[in-house]
C-alpha cells in the first residue's frame, strides 16, 4: 500500500527489519515474564538436595526428578492441609465471584436501562467509591464483623468479596451499548414482566461482559491476601494464598524442619496457579475483548 504513495525500492526494507526488531523485543519480554514461572516449574521437580546444590543450576532440572514425591508430600503434609486450603480458595473464589457478578449485572442493568429518582447521584457515588482503597476498609470491616461474631468464619471472607463497584461500572457501560431499548420495549409490548425481560432478553446479550466480570471477580477473590489474612485465625479456613504465606513464614524462621518446607512451598505455589492459568487460556476470546470496556467512556 505504501508503494503507491512513496516511490522507490528501499521503502520496503524498513518494515521487514522492523518486524524482526519487534519480534526480538517480544521474545525478550516473554522471557522476562516467564522466568519466574519457569524457575517454579524446574524447582518443583527437585528434591531438597537438588534445590540447594543441584547439578543443573537454578534454572535447569536436576539429574533426579522428584516431582511425584514432592506432590505426594504436598498433599499429605500436616494432615493434608494444602488440599483443604485449595478447596477453601475454590469455595471463596466461586461464591464471592459468582455473587459479585450477579450483583454487578443486575445493578449495571438497572443503571443503564431504568430511570429512577436518584440514579445519577447514586452512580456518581459508585464512581467515587471506585477510588476508595479497598484495603483501607479491611481493618474497619474486621472490627465491624468481630462485633457481630463473624470473624474467623467463611462469611468474613465471602461477604466483603461481593463488593465490586468497578464490575457494576463495567456492566453499566456494556449494557448501555449492547442491549437496545427498542428490544426491551418490544418485549414490554408483548406483555413480558421486567424480570423476565432482564433474564431472557438482556442477559443473553450481555454474555461476553458477564464472563469478563466473573473472571475478574474470581481472580480478585482467589488472589486476595489481606482480607483473609486479617479475618481468619484458624488455619483450616485459610485460602491457599494465606496458607502458603504461613508456610513461608515458618520456613524462614526455621520452625518446622528447615528446607523440607521450602520444596513444599515451591510445588504448592505451582499447583495453586494452575487453575487460574487454565481458566484464562480457555476463556481467552471472552476476556480479551471484555477488558477494554472500562476505557470506552
Amino acid at each position, binding site marked *: 500500500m505504501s508503494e503507491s504513495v512513496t516511490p522507490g525500492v528501499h521503502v520496503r526494507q524498513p518494515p521487514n527489519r522492523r518486524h524482526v526488531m519487534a519480534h526480538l523485543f517480544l521474545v525478550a519480554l516473554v522471557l522476562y515474564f516467564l522466568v519466574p514461572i519457569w524457575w517454579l516449574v524446574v524447582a518443583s521437580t527437585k528434591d531438597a538436595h537438588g534445590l540447594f546444590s543441584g547439578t543443573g543450576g537454578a534454572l535447569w532440572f536436576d539429574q533426579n526428578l522428584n516431582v511425584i514425591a514432592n506432590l505426594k508430600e504436598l498433599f499429605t503434609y500436616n494432615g493434608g492441609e494444602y488440599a483443604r486450603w485449595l478447596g477453601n480458595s475454590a469455595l471463596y473464589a466461586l461464591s464471592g465471584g459468582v455473587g459479585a457478578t450477579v*450483583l454487578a449485572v443486575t445493578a449495571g442493568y438497572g443503571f443503564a436501562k431504568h430511570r429512577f429518582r436518584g440514579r445519577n447521584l447514586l452512580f456518581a457515588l459508585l464512581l467515587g467509591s471506585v*477510588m476508595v482503597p479497598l484495603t483501607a476498609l479491611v481493618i474497619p470491616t474486621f472490627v465491624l464483623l468481630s462485633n457481630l461474631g463473624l470473624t474467623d468464619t467463611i462469611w468474613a471472607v465471602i461477604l466483603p468479596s*461481593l463488593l465490586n*463497584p468497578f464490575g*457494576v461500572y463495567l456492566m453499566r457501560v456494556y449494557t*448501555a451499548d449492547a442491549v437496545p431499548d*427498542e428490544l426491551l420495549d418490544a418485549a414490554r409490548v408483548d406483555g413480558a414482566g*421486567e424480570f423476565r425481560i432482564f433474564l431472557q432478553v438482556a442477559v443473553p446479550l450481555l454474555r461476553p461482559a458477564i464472563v469478563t466480570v466473573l473472571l475478574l471477580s474470581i481472580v480478585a477473590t482467589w488472589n486476595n491476601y489481606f482480607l483473609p489474612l486479617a479475618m481468619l485465625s484458624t488455619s483450616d479456613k485459610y485460602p491457599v494464598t494465606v496458607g502458603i504465606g504461613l508456610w513461608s513464614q515458618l520456613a524462614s524462621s526455621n520452625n518446622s524442619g528447615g528446607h523440607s518446607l521450602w520444596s513444599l512451598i515451591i510445588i504448592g505455589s505451582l499447583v495453586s496457579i494452575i487453575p487460574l492459568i487454565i481458566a484464562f487460556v480457555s476463556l481467552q476470546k471472552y476476556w*480479551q475483548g471484555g477488558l477494554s470496556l472500562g476505557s470506552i467512556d
Partner: protein
Amino acid sequence: MATTGQTAMPKPPREVADPGRPQRSGRRKKTGRRSVVGWLFIAPFGVVFLAFLVAPLAYAFYLSLFSKGLATGTTFTGIGNYVRAFTDPDFLGGIWFVLRFSIVLIPLQMAVSLAAALVLDNLTTRLAKFSRLMIFMPYAIPAVIGALMWGFLYSPTFGPLEGIFSLFNAKAPFLLSQDNVFYGLLNVVTWQWAGYYMIIIYAALQGIDPSIYEAARIDGANARQVALRIKVPMVSSALVLILVFALIGTLQFFTEPQVLAPIANGTITPTFTPNIYAFNLAFSYAQFNYASAISFALGIVVFIVVYVFMFFTRKRGSVLR
C-alpha cells in the same frame, strides 16, 4: 445520558402499534412503574455497598475519634488520632515510601505496557499472539505467589543470580537488601501488573478504526508518527484509567512487602508502608482506634492524590482531543 436522548426520539414501532395514544401520559406512566423496578435491580448491590463500604468507612471514622488507654479506658479524643498520625514519623515515612514508589513505578509500568501493546498491535503473527498471552499471565498469579517466586530468584541460595554473576567474577547483589529493596519490589510489581495494563491498552488500540492509519499514511506519516501522534492520543482514556488503577493500588501497597519481609532480613520493617503499619497496629498491638485512623488517613491521602491527578489529566486530555 443515552436513555434520555432515546426516549425523546420518536420510536417507529410503538407509534405504529398505538398511534392515537397521547405520548406524554404514556411515557410518564411507564417511568413511574419502571422507577420502582430500577430500584429493585440496584437494591442487592446497594445492600452490599452499604454494609461493606459505607458502614466500614463510617465505623472507621467513628473509631478513629476515640483512643484506648490502659488506665483510662476508651475516651473521646476527637481529631487527636489524626494529629498523631500526621506527625507520626512511622506513618509519614510509609506515605513517603509509597509516593516515591508510585512516582518511579507508574511511568515504568506504563512504558513497558504501552510499548508492548503498540508492538503487538502491529503484528498478527502466531508468535505475537502467544507473547500477548504470556505477558498477561502474571495477572493470573496471586501477588503472594509472585512475590515468593521473585523472592526465591533473588535469594542467594535458590536463585540463579549468584551463578550468573560468578561467571563474570562479580558478586551478585541481594535485591532485598537495605539499598536494593526499592528496586527489588519495583521489579516484582512491574512483572505482576504490566501484562494486565498491556491487555487494556491493546484492546483499546484494536478498537481504533484502521482507516485513520490509512489516511495518515497517505499524508506521509511514518510508523513512529502514527504510533505517537494517533494511537497514543486515541487510547488516552485507557491510559488514564490504568494510571488511576496503578496509583490506587500502589498507595495501598501491602501484599508483596508483607510476604517478602521474613526473607528480607529485616529491611522490610513493620512500618514499611501505611497499610502494613495499620495491619501491625491492629493485629500485633490491638490498637484498633489508631489503626482505623491510619486506614482512614491513608484513604484520604489516596483520594486527594487521585483527585489531583484526575484534575490534571482531564485538562491535558482535552488538549489532546
